[in-house]
């Protein structure tokens, strides 16, 4: 969180200074972690432990970022007190259940706990998407299509991580299905991105920041990663396939993280101020509307 005193007198939208990389860290850790917990349930089955532990660690890291961000650390438990209204509370309420189920799944690796963990992870991921969407003061966040974008990127990151984990953990084994799923999710992510970007109405600088981030997120994170995943799936086995799959997974994760950093910091221009009508000064004329920075 920025310690700089607010600079008064600004009219055009400026980048909000209340949430910084620490907040982005929560969306990164939470998104990738829950994605991994979900993907692991599909991909690993009985060998869920590493997925559960890494996934929970990521979610925990994200929450620790939030802990660092808030002003009154000792009051952190109060975050639980606005259930039913605040998506931040919902996220916080889901978290202990997620950790409980996740740890149980890691310990017992039974389908019940694995799938319960995946379900709670999905809820957690959805909460995160809604948290961003409820940030009504930030045009780049409040666009409803940010919800599928955040959800799908979380899933893509999770599958990307799964693919990378499978490649790294196991012997360099064939990974056709996870790679194919990754490719599908990356296509879905680029569709979600395009839908979001097309609908988005935001200050010109916010749009420029998003478009500037497009290379890392969409071009590389989606368009480069997806073919790599497809090639890996087609090759089906062998070290090349594994490395290609791992590369696709890493790019998918990196792209998603880049998107969240861009969304939460660089593109997080606030609403600014606008005048739908100008005052009539004495016997003057009303003048055109003004919406600086849009």
């Amino acid at each position, binding site marked *: 969180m920025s310690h700089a*005193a607010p600079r008064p007198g600004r009219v055009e939208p400026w980048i909000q200074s209340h949430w910084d990389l620490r907040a982005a860290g929560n969306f990164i850790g939470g998104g990738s972690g829950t994605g991994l917990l979900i993907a692991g349930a599909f991909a690993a089955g009985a060998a869920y432990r590493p997925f559960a532990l890494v996934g929970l660690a990521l979610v925990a890291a994200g929450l620790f970022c939030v802990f660092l961000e808030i*002003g009154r650390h000792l009051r952190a438990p109060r975050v639980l007190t606005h259930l039913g209204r605040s998506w931040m509370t919902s996220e916080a309420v889901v978290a202990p259940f997620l950790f409980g189920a996740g740890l149980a799944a890691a310990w017992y690796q039974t389908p019940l706990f694995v799938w319960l963990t995946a379900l709670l992870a999905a809820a957690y991921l959805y909460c995160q998407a809604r948290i961003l969407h409820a940030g009504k003061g930030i045009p780049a966040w409040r666009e409803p299509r940010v919800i599928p974008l955040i959800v799908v990127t979380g899933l893509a990151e999770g599958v990307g991580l799964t693919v990378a984990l499978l490649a790294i953990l196991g012997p360099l084994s064939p990974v056709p299905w996870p790679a194919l799923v990754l490719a599908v999710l990356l296509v879905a992510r680029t569709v979600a991105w395009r839908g979001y970007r097309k609908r988005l109405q935001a200050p010109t600088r916010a749009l420029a920041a998003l478009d500037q981030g497009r290379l890392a997120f969409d071009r590389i994170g989606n368009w480069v990663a997806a073919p790599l995943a497809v090639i890996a799936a087609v090759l089906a086995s062998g070290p090349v396939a594994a490395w290609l799959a791992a590369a696709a997974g890493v790019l998918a994760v990196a792209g998603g993280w880049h998107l969240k950093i861009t969304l939460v910091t660089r593109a997080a221009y606030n609403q600014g101020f606008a005048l739908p009508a100008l005052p009539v000064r004495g016997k003057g004329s009303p003048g055109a509307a003004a919406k600086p920075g849009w």
Partner: protein
Amino acid sequence: MTRWAMTVDLRRCIGCQTCTAACKQANATPPGTQWRQVLDMESGEYPDVRRTFVPVGCMHCADPPCVHVCPTTATRKRADGLVTMDYDVCIGCGYCAVACPYQARHINHRRSYAYGDAPDETEAARFDPKRMSVANKCTFCVDRIDAGLAQGLKPGVDPEATPACVNSCITQTYAFGDLEDPASNVSQLLAENHWFRMHEELGTDPGIYYIVDGK
């Protein structure tokens, strides 16, 4: 029912910042934090240029995004429409600040002083540790309203029960009163004039009305 609301007559405002200064003093906000501020907005191109002064701050919305998002209920909306802050409950997460489309919320993580690294006497005396690292914003001078009402005074009419910005204004830009009362000053002004509300399209139902012309 009561809904406290404010009208801001943009025809009158001259950007003098008297309300800004009065608010800072009435609410002891630290340097750089302005619950009420008056913007200087230029529009058009030379020589067809307009310059408009626009007082802004918490709009005390009827559907306040800050209240929805607050994970602690530190921010609440009262039955009389005032959006309040409980400094003892707020965790300073900043969610309300990014949810507010009016840039009305502030969080001060470090003490700051008018001069140098130490408070002057009045700053020291008025420092409230409760306000550190939690969200703060315009309260419509809720303490004055409540104390005034308790004494039988009428907010918007009796200065002791009226927000400091309204009291201080040297151009009668502001009026404050009960929107639900058709006889109130604000209701009358809204009936007699053309007005808009800032970012009305966002559906927050803000409680500050900007008057731009007579009917």
